[in-house]
């Protein structure tokens, strides 16, 4: 079925592009074709087939949120998901992504400000819960199922086990709930309209109500582990605070708020890395070792108590 999906989705993307621009230059490309997601571009339009098993009602609510917040999230071309080979499909304008070969040029300030604005939106009545913790739990469960005897599995599973239930997706988060992106990383930013328009957040699959600190926690984890240059982290955090983001106090040490979710995202990223390395039959590379080492250090440092 996956083999049939790509040509069908490619045709749908062309239809969407031609509806926008009959004089289309017809430049097409497959942007992603993974087990769970396929994304195809045709000129100014992008068609995305969401993961099998996606809840269509929840996706429709998430799509409606994107349509209502065009200054923050990329607005979809069609207001409701379509269906193709049993998969929900959504349509989007094509935007220019962050250059993956130049992460230093990433728009950290804009990203911080966009997340702050998202978190300040009054919570829409009909919005599903944030899927971040659930996805992290799934990555850790996969490690436990597939590679429990890998030498790096122990520290990662221990770090995860020490987290409070909310960070493992097993209980509601303490503190106020906000509208969150749920899966922020540098692949979730594009310029719309391409090539030089303002930056917008994309990918609503994990968007929902939850603790806003989750959206800061992945860059926080990168910084803590040593992957992200402190300058970039501070630019991101300062812009978030300057835009009135509610996930951390406006000044002072942000780590009492960031500690637990940054641990969860470090464990998730480490779990993915170990599972992938084990599946490929290769040793962990240096960056993957940093993630596992950070997990190993967590047990000796009690988690910060949440501020409220």
């Amino acid at each position, binding site marked *: 079925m996956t083999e049939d999906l790509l040509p069908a989705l490619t045709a749908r993307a062309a239809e969407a592009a031609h509806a926008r621009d009959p004089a289309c230059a017809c430049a097409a490309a497959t942007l992603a074709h993974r087990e769970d997601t396929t994304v195809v571009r045709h000129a100014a339009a992008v068609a995305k087939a969401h993961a099998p098993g996606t809840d269509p009602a929840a996706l429709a609510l998430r799509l409606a949120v994107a349509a209502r917040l065009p200054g923050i999230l990329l607005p979809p071309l069609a207001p409701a998901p379509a269906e193709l080979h049993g998969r929900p499909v959504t349509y989007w304008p094509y935007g220019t992504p962050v250059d*993956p070969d130049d*992460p230093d040029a990433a728009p950290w300030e804009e990203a911080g400000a966009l997340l702050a604005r998202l978190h300040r939106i009054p919570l829409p009545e009909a919005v599903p819960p944030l899927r971040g913790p659930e996805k992290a739990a799934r990555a850790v469960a996969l490690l436990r199922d597939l590679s429990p005897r890998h030498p790096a599995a122990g520290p990662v599973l221990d770090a995860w086990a020490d987290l409070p239930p909310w960070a493992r997706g097993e209980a509601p988060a303490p503190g106020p709930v906000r509208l969150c992106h749920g899966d922020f990383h540098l692949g979730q930013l594009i310029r719309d309209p391409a090539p030089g328009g303002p930056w917008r957040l994309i990918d609503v699959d994990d968007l929902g109500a939850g603790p806003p600190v989750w959206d800061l926690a992945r860059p926080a984890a990168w910084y803590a582990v*040593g*992957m*992200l240059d402190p300058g970039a982290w*501070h630019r991101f955090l300062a812009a978030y605070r300057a835009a009135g983001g509610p996930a951390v106090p406006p000044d002072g040490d942000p780590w009492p708020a960031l500690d637990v979710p940054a641990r969860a995202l470090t464990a998730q990223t480490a779990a993915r890395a170990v599972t992938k390395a084990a599946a490929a039959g290769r040793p962990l590379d240096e*960056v993957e070792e940093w993630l596992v*080492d*950070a997990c190993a*250090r967590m047990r000796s440092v009690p988690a910060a108590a949440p501020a409220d």
Partner: protein
Amino acid sequence: MQCPKCRAPMHTYNRNGVQIEQCSGCRGIFLDYGELEALTRLESQWSQPAPPPPAAPQAYPAAAPQAPAWGAPHGGHYGNRRHKSFGHMLFSS
């Protein structure tokens, strides 16, 4: 090491056995985990206030970057970014 605030080079000083990094540009100070506590301990041991050491400015900008204690030791690894997985991870879940 580069200053996380203004990118100027940082120089290492030893103050009563505690190593601190000070920025040559904005004069901000970077303390490793536990060093602030070590300095506070030393300070409380003085029975009377000592004159400030000549090289240390009177007022520091609040530039000490905060990080969790389980994070990467001293300064992180970020200078070393020629890894394939590094770039990939910043762009994926």
